[in-house]
């Protein structure tokens, strides 16, 4: 029977399997992007995805073909995932990044006749080096040379090296010798941290580091067939019994212990948890937790505990401790009781910023959800991305079977989403999008834009667009669509949202992206965007406004545009010119009234210029009414009369105008003459009124008899 390749989730669910038809395998390993590397004896590396689907293969060089691969290691640095092999000729070759394959053959170790007892790949100052042990000798291989090294403080009687371990962050190194001596120090080999002598001297199956970021407690975990030992800076060690064959996987903040039937996690207990749960702890967090419990029992002890914390002014600290400790707990019940305590403590604080509490609740929801065995992504809080972006957190995910990255978690919102489908290539985009939507529905907090962004990163633009359809928040859709260069779609999404700022943003983006012609055409089909762009132009680029109206043959607006511009002309010829343009447009718009009015306006302007020159008085820019009125005030009755006729001023209005002006001028004689020129179209009451207004009762009396009796008061 053929061997089977099976891929399981971290909770032991079979994800996929494949009958193995290729060559003899030497080593399996995961890449940082969740691909499975199967390293064969002949130096060929086959790459599969999480679903046992073959992706590609590459070779570790021709030299291997004759010599075969004795051992291989998959390692991770800031450059990505690398592969190192030890050939039958006892030479090491490595590629630092399998995505950008550059094979490096490491220098030869002089006089090496048999395979080294152990070796490891180290990354120091962005250089990848190999440490290799032969009996009691330790060699360091870098790009060019091979040098013999001695770790500082190494006991001369330590014996031959059996096993070595590099820490997760490449900073620490541990060496195990055949006398049971363990040397622990910096990977630079410049400093020893501590040492330990084990009572078991047989070669361990595995040795790995167990430590957490920023902790001073460092320890190594050594595994034999049925024995597990934790040794660190202490003469004592901790021992466990292993029931089954187990595999140790070092991670950012601890060690996973995987066996056929179990998956355990070994770690140093985080500080806040220690503070709170240590027996008889008097730490503020511990007291607060106690206070909250008593409060629930309605006991007055709650107050005593609380008082004790408050007297030391440690309540904010207590709340912080409880929130932080909740993060490290895996049991929802314990998490809840800690958060309840934090929330209880918060009630007695004036200004405790709520963000950390809210964030923790959200994070725990995500963590608890993904830790569910059906999903099987048992991340610890420290490994959870938002907590430690960048930093040392880069490769933690590859170290165990089915893992987090590939699941495309939506980190920013309190819910997980599961789109392995994103990577399924055989289904149509529509189907995949629907499948994902069916699975997730409208679950609160699901960020479809995040999933879409992931799909886009995988090169599935169409799928990303389909997925974005499910995203209810346009604010989220638009930036991604712009990034994907789907600006027109972005525009309609922005319009749908009603957020005009978003529309403006897309419009100005389009303006830079498209040629002027296409840009205008695009706007043509989006009236909302068009009117907003017009607003923009009105304030920022008036000339473009003209082009926009021109394109629509909107002659009315063009006319208005020219009227508007005419007022910023500094010379009268300029004003008349602009008005002439307006006049033409008004005619084209079949707006007879506006055309006639503009014609009159031009006529008036020209006339005013003459008046200004002839009479040496300011006339320009007065209204027709004021022009005539001023002429009368200055006694140019003939000219006033001329305007009255030229502009067809209605009689009634002319009479009102003339008597007001005459009264203001105090020209009562002229007024009386005027009143007798013909029958007044406004009657004679206005004559009385205007005389009274100018305190001339004598004149008023003159007209009184001509007012019909019913108007007399």
């Amino acid at each position, binding site marked *: 029977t053929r061997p089977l390749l099976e891929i399981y989730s971290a909770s032991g669910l079979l994800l996929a399997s494949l009958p193995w038809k290729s060559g003899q395998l030497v080593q399996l390993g995961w890449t940082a992007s969740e691909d499975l590397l199967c390293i064969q004896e002949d130096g060929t590396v086959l790459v599969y995805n999480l679903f046992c689907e073959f992706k590609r293969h590459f070779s570790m060089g021709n030299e291997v073909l004759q010599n075969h691969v004795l051992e291989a290691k998959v390692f991770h640095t800031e450059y990505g995932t690398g592969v190192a092999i030890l050939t039958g000729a006892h030479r090491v070759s490595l590629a630092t990044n399998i995505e950008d394959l550059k094979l490096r053959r490491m220098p030869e170790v002089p006089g090496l006749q048999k395979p080294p007892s152990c070796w490891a790949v180290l990354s120091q100052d962005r250089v990848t080096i190999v440490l290799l042990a032969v009996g009691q000798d330790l060699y360091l291989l870098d790009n060019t040379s091979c040098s013999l090294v001695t770790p500082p403080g190494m006991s001369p009687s330590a014996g031959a090296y059996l096993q070595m371990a590099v820490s997760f962050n490449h900073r620490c190194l541990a060496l195990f010798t055949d006398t049971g001596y363990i040397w622990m120090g910096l990977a630079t080999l410049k400093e020893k941290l501590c040492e330990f002598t084990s009572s078991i001297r047989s070669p361990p199956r595995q040795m790995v580091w167990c430590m957490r970021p920023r902790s001073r407690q460092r320890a190594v975990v050594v595994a034999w067939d049925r024995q597990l030992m934790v040794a660190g800076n202490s003469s004592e060690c901790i021992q466990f019994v292993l029931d089954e064959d187990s595999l140790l996987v070092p991670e950012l903040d601890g060690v996973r212990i995987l066996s056929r039937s179990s998956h355990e996690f070994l770690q140093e207990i985080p500080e806040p948890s220690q503070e709170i749960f240590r027996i008889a702890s008097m730490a503020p967090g511990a007291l607060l937790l106690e206070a909250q419990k008593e409060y629930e029992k309605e006991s007055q002890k709650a107050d005593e505990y609380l008082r004790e914390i408050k007297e030391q002014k440690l309540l904010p600290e207590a709340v912080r401790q409880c929130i932080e400790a909740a993060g490290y707990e895996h049991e929802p019940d314990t998490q809840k009781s800690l958060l309840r305590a934090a929330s209880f403590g918060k009630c007695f604080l004036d200004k405790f910023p709520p963000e950390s509490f809210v964030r923790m609740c959200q994070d725990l929801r995500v963590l608890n959800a993904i830790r569910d065995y059906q999903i099987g992504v048992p991340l610890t809080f420290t490994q959870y991305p938002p907590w430690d972006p960048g930093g040392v957190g880069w490769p933690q995910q590859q170290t165990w079977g089915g893992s987090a990255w590939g699941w495309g978690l939506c980190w920013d919102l*309190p819910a997980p989403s599961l789109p392995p489908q994103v990577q399924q290539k055989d289904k149509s985009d529509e189907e995949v999008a629907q499948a994902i939507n069916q699975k997730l529905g409208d679950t*609160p907090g699901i960020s479809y834009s995040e999933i879409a962004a992931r799909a886009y990163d995988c090169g599935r633009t169409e799928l990303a667009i389909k997925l974005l359809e499910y995203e209810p928040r346009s604010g989220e859709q638009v930036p991604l669509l712009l990034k994907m260069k789907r600006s027109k779609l972005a525009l309609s999404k922005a319009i749908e949202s009603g957020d005009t700022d978003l529309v403006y*943003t897309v419009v100005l983006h389009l303006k830079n992206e498209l040629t002027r012609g296409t840009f205008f055409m695009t706007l043509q089909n989006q009236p909302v965007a068009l009117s907003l762009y017009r607003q923009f132009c009105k304030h920022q680029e008036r000339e473009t406004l003209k082009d926009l109206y021109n394109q629509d043959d909107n002659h009315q607006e063009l006319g208005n545009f020219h009227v*508007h511009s005419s*007022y910023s002309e500094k010379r009268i010829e300029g004003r008349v010119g602009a008005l002439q343009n307006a006049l033409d447009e008004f005619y084209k718009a079949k707006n007879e009234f506006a055309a006639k*009015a503009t014609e*009159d306006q031009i006529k008036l302007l020209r006339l005013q210029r003459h008046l200004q020159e002839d009479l040496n008085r300011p006339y320009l820019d007065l209204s027709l009414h004021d022009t005539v009125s001023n002429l009368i005030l200055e006694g140019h009755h003939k000219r006033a009369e001329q305007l009255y006729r030229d502009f067809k001023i209605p009689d009634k209005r002319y009479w009102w105008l003339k008597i007001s002006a005459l009264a203001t001028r105090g020209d009562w004689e002229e007024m009386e003459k005027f009143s007798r020129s013909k029958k007044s179209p406004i009657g004679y009451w206005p004559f009385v009124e205007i005389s009274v207004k100018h305190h001339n009762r004598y004149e008023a009396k003159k007209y009184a008899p001509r007012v019909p009796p019913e108007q007399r008061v």
Partner: protein
Amino acid sequence: MAAHLSSGRVNLTALREAGRRELREFLDKCAGSKAIVWDEYLTGPFGLIAQYSLLKEHEVEKMFTLKPGRLPPADVKNVIFFVRPKLELMDIITDNVLREDRGRSPQRDFHILFVPRRSLLCEQWLKEQGVLGSFIHREQYSLDLIPFDGDLLSMESESAFKECYLESDQTSLYHAAKGLMTLQALYGTIPQIFGKGECARHVANMMIRMKREFPGSQNSIFPVFDTLLLLDRNVDLLTPLATQLTYEGLIDEIYGIQNTYVKLPPEKFAPKKQGEGGKDLPTEPKKLQLNSAEELYAEIRDKNFNAVGSVLSKKAKIISAAFEERHHAKTVGEIKQFVSQLPHMQAARSSLANHTSIAELIKDITTSEDFFDNLTVEQEFMSGIDTDKVNNYIEDCIAQKHPLIKILRLVCLQSVCNSGLKQKVLDHYKREILQTYGYEHILTLNNLEKAGLLKPQTSGRNNYPTIRKTLRLWMDDVNEQNPNDISYVYSGYAPLSVRLAQLLARPGWRSIEEVLKMLPGPHFEERQQLPTGLQKKRQQGENRVTLVFFLGGVTYAEIAALRFLSQMEDGGTEYVIATTKLINGTTWIKSLMEKLEPAPF
């Protein structure tokens, strides 16, 4: 201090508190001493949220008005710009920042607070000018709906009507929808939404959309509002054009109320001392705050002005009687009690004195012949008399060059009451206006036509009489002293908008389907699902609460009419009013006018 906000059915103090909290949080982000540079338009609205003392508590030491040039020297750590997201303002800010003296030490930190919304556009703009990096904090302050009184909210967005109906720029509607979401976050989901008009439809759509955007945030607050009624201003263009005849409405028409403050001519408020014969008259206008915190004002603000006098004289009698009490106070106990009431009585007396003076000022105007003539014409139009021909009074007013806005109000009113004017009549008015006030007003007239305020009668049919009769917009038997109908606020005319609200509550819009179809825009109803636990079980006799949102502005008379409906004994509905802007015919028309300043030749 905020008593006026909590007096109503809905406690709006919570909204103001939320606003203050947000402001404090922002100010605390910029540690150290601060100077605020104000977009001048914002100072009024901000005053309703937070006094200077609050800013001072948070280390605001200086305040400047935003203008181009170098910022005034002020020895502060932070300079914060409080601005609306407008590109013109960004240019000024850019200028300020670029001219900042780089050599000064210590350097001042810059921040921007966008009101009410942070804008990508503005930030992009600042980025292109190369100054975006100068700002440490760029945040938004969602001041959408500002509480003006216990039952009144306004966005104070001056140009909202113009933007929506003239320029198809629906930015203010987006803010309105956001404001309503904030309101719902504080006062619970509003289960029923009714609306009339395009803008109303748009706002409702956005609200539904926004709700879907945050499906997780299931609102667990017991709903305070039962119904939201969204009304487009262009459904009722008539009401703001008519002269308001309530006390508050007249104060606004004549003196203009801004952010609850009014400035009055000082003469009437001179302290009366005998023998001084009015020599040292104060020259500064008298500034008064008008809101329901003042007991007397709350009582008279919504009355028809003709009913105010009798209340004032009654009050005067009560107050002087109260002061007379002192003669009857014999025992020490009695005197003590009298003294303890003194501050209240003195406040009441000065309030009475103020309003008596205001009433006198108004009376001088309302008794003038011109006011009377103007009102007569308005009322003729509204009751449907001679709306189809050129009106003599309007012609005479133009001939005498009365203020242009007055003319425009009248002509628009006539146009609206006639469903548009005959082309000949319209052209005549337009020509008269252009010849008298200047040809530059052709653009203003064009705007009024675009907004539908002034238009030629196209269909040849005048719908207004049908609308007037069906909705009973004109009531001949109006009772100004003891009103029994909302028509008292315009002494005969019942505001159409408020009639719609009234009919919605009882018997429902189904009874007026035909008329609704004659008014512009769709009418609609939406329901927002509530979790079962939050569904209301109404107590016997408990009133419903309806929020009426006027998109494009509301007048004080309309508010008065809604308050009248709230107080009706068998009304069954109480109203809270929200709007984009508090308007009157004058400010409204002004916002639609094109300001053309000729360049000097």
